[in-house]
């Protein structure tokens, strides 16, 4: 029985949230819906952890969906690379489930609250599916599941601008998804297979054709859209700003990260390092774009008046960091990119959660709204400060570890210009984080809003926020396990891809 459960775990990670979603809709009542949501999220987090351990021991866990052996059936694969991403997605989901109750109760009309849980579950199922699938077309399907649910989630935001943001995201996301579909179709045309491992072995003989080159271009552009890689980022600031707080927190921590994962899953595993970075100059293009992203988006963040939007712009800059790491295509670079992918998920999740808690209290998230909240909500404000420091990359936080390994990798690859860009961007991040901290602690509360602006956020929100903050600090203080895992993953990608 137990071994049976273990054997089915890769499928269950996807199936549990997917089946929980209709359950939530059936349950309908707020608390019941929430309980199912919490149960499902923590269940898959637990399974993800077990899978992570299993993948670490065995090197790879493979599961044939429906018993159809790959390459004909759909295969789920958990290797050291995506096990980490899976852990991030399910971990953030588990914490989001704690956070969600109070936040949703405050921001969404009561009758529709359960729908948010259902949509979140679908989104989680989609993201988990993207992460662990070993089948190219299956990846597209999961991508669309997560995308469709996130369009709907964003549209549930309290302001009417959420609607247009969601619609624009829908157009962009669909175009991105369709590009991915075209790309997959083109490689399928050349090889007759959709299994990623099988693709990897069948592509080299036909790699010199324009079809395969075009396929790579379509896949990279399509997924870059989802990953908000500069200059395809424009949907992101609005989407994150106007979405409900819990959605911003979850999506910012996971969705773009998973998309980046998917880009590099294709590039490294399917097309291979030598092809994408040796034969074709993909690395150069990505490095240039990520360098621009770091600076331009950081500059934009400085000018924002809304903290959520500020964080959204900072996310775009940070995506530049992540992609820069991967695009180096060296073992150090990949592991640095992966480390920052995880750390940034934790940082941004924590920051958006903290802002959500402030929003819960204030009904607003402009920097002026936050003035003087350091005294009114000390715990939440402290969480924001620690998260902000991590975002800057202050020692003893996860952000510092990222910065360090990224810089090391860039030095190793002799990319001195990028080093300078990264340093400049981290200076810029001081300015925008500093603006928020200044408002929180060194400005007085405006007189007209004192009546309702006191007292901390509910326990669930604080717990989730601080759990992410604690993860940040834990990684900052003891990064060896994370680095080790990232290095194993990088080694797997470099070795397995070619």
């Amino acid at each position, binding site marked *: 029985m137990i071994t049976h459960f273990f054997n089915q775990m890769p499928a269950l990670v996807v199936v549990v949230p997917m089946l929980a979603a209709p359950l939530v809709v059936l349950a309908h009542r707020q608390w019941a819906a929430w309980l199912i949501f919490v149960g499902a999220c923590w269940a898959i987090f637990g399974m993800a952890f077990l899978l992570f351990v299993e993948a670490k021991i065995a090197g790879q866990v493979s599961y044939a969906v429906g018993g159809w052996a790959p390459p004909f059936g759909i295969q789920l694969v958990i290797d050291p690379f995506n096990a980490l991403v899976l852990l991030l997605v399910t971990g953030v989901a588990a914490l989001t489930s704690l956070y969600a109750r109070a936040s949703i109760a405050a921001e969404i009309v009561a009758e529709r609250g359960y729908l948010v849980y259902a949509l979140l579950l679908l989104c989680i199922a989609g993201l988990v599916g993207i992460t662990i699938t070993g089948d190219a077309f299956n990846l597209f399907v999961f991508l669309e599941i997560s995308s*469709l649910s996130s369009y709907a989630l964003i549209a549930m935001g309290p302001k009417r601008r959420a609607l247009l943001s969601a619609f624009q995201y829908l157009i962009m996301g669909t*175009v991105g998804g369709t590009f991915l579909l075209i790309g997959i179709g083109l490689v399928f045309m050349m090889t007759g297979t959709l299994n990623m491992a099988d693709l990897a072995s069948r592509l080299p003989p036909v790699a010199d054709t324009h079809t395969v080159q075009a396929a790579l271009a379509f896949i990279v552009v399509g997924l870059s859209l989802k990953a908000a890689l500069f200059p395809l980022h424009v949907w992101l600031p609005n989407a994150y700003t106007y979405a409900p707080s819990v959605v911003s927190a979850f999506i910012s921590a996971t969705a773009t990260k998973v998309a980046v994962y998917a880009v590099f899953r294709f590039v490294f595993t399917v097309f291979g390092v030598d092809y994408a970075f040796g034969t074709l100059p993909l690395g150069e293009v990505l490095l240039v774009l990520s360098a621009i992203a770091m600076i331009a988006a950081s500059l934009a963040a400085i000018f924002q008046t809304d903290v959520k939007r500020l964080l959204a712009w900072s996310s775009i800059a940070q995506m530049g960091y992540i992609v820069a790491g991967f695009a180096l295509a060296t073992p150090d670079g990949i592991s640095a990119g992966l480390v920052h992918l995880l750390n940034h998920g934790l940082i941004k999740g924590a920051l958006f959660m903290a802002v959500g808690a402030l929003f819960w209290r204030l009904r607003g998230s402009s920097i002026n709204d936050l003035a003087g909240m350091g005294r009114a909500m000390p715990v939440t404000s402290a969480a924001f400060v620690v998260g902000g420091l991590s975002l800057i990359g202050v020692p003893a936080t996860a952000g510092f570890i990222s910065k360090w390994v990224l810089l090391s990798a860039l030095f190793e690859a002799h990319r001195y210009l990028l080093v300078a860009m990264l340093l400049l961007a981290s200076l810029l991040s001081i300015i925008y984080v500093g603006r928020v901290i200044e408002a929180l602690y060194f400005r007085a509360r405006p007189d007209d809003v004192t009546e309702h602006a006191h007292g901390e956020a509910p326990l669930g929100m604080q717990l989730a926020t601080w759990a992410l903050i604690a993860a940040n600090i834990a990684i900052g203080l003891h990064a060896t396990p994370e680095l080790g895992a990232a290095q194993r993953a990088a080694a797997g990608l470099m070795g397995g891809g070619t």
Partner: protein
Amino acid sequence: MMDFFNDTVAGLFNYWIVFGLMMIGFYTVIAHDNLVKKLIGLNVFQTSVFILYISMGDIRGATAPILIDGQAIYAHPLPQVLILTAIVVGVSTTALGLALIVRIHEAYGAIEEDDVLAADFATQDAEDATEQARSAQARATEPHAPADADDGAEREESRPS
């Protein structure tokens, strides 16, 4: 010349159609302001990809992948299965998009992107102005000279005039 025509134009005519549809769809999404038209453009764009898939599964002289006596050659079934899934995705997207358009129309009274954006910009500008005014006010009311209230100073005021 004829060979070229046969190979590249006539022989690949379905790909040309795919290409044409794709461009038409894309152009519609870019050029039209009306959100419904954008969605239609998106549909055309997606449909072109469906045809691309179907085309690649086709074999000259083959039938549909159904068991028929005496017919040994049939088209590759997998792309068709895939496209069934993709069509589902496309339909869902369209439904969701239309739902959003309905709500946009309720909220803004318009479904032209320019109008909606203009309304958003107006809100945004108003908000920016409010925020700037608030910042300015906060700056003005904040202590410039050190109040030193936090230093607990107990000054006997005796500054010379």
